[in-house]
């Protein structure tokens, strides 16, 4: 069973590594993200949100949905620990 799990892990890892071959090069200015998305943020974020810190503007406004679930992940971690460990003093 352990050998099977190891085999599955290695195969998944190899598949993922094979998938990275299609990525654009690191910091490639011609990649789709750098040629369409980032310039829009850099040019328009301050006008559209009045937030000088572009990281905050992207995190809180453009990618607000992502940030919401980051918060929910932290919340779930807390609730999981409480539901496993917490017990009342009387017991």
């Amino acid at each position, binding site marked *: 069973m352990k050998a099977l799990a190891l085999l599955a892990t290695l195969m998944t890892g190899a598949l993922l590594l094979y998938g990275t071959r299609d990525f654009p090069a690191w910091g490639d200015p011609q990649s789709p993200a750098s040629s369409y998305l980032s310039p829009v943020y850099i040019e328009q974020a301050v006008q559209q*949100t009045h937030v000088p810190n572009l990281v905050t503007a992207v995190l*809180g406004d453009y990618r607000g949905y992502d940030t919401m679930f980051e*918060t929910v992940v932290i919340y779930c971690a807390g609730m999981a620990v409480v539901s496993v460990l917490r017990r009342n003093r009387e017991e």
Partner: protein
Amino acid sequence: MREIKEYTAGEDLIIKTSVRLLVPFIQLFGLYVIVHGHYSPGGGFQGGVLLGASFILLALAYNIKTSQEYLSIGVNALFSNLGPAIFIGVGVLCTVFGGLFLDYSALDLLIPLGPVEWRSFGIFLIEVGVGLAVMNIMVLLYWNLSSGGNMDEGL
């Protein structure tokens, strides 16, 4: 086993005094990081971690009971639920006023500040929610993990 317990690092005058002096400044800096996230690196996550660390420092230097005098279990539970509720509530409120989910400019109908200013202020609102959630969940995790769930002795 008993001997090890008697030499815990917490019972030390220097540590206690320095922690007592440091905690207000850590909390002030945490609030600054949350509030100033629009202009400098920072925001809800970082500021929340700083605020949570100040209470964990109290629990480490003194004990869990002392930190619970400043942040009671009830308030902690309330805030750790309130944080995500603020975030999701702001998002839902945007849809109620006719925008998309988390499109803060729709809240202009509620208080007319201008759509652009509302996007800035909406980011601040959700940062407060994130900060509350991160701070209280951090403290909650420390309390539960260090005391094995009964929240009284701790390390």
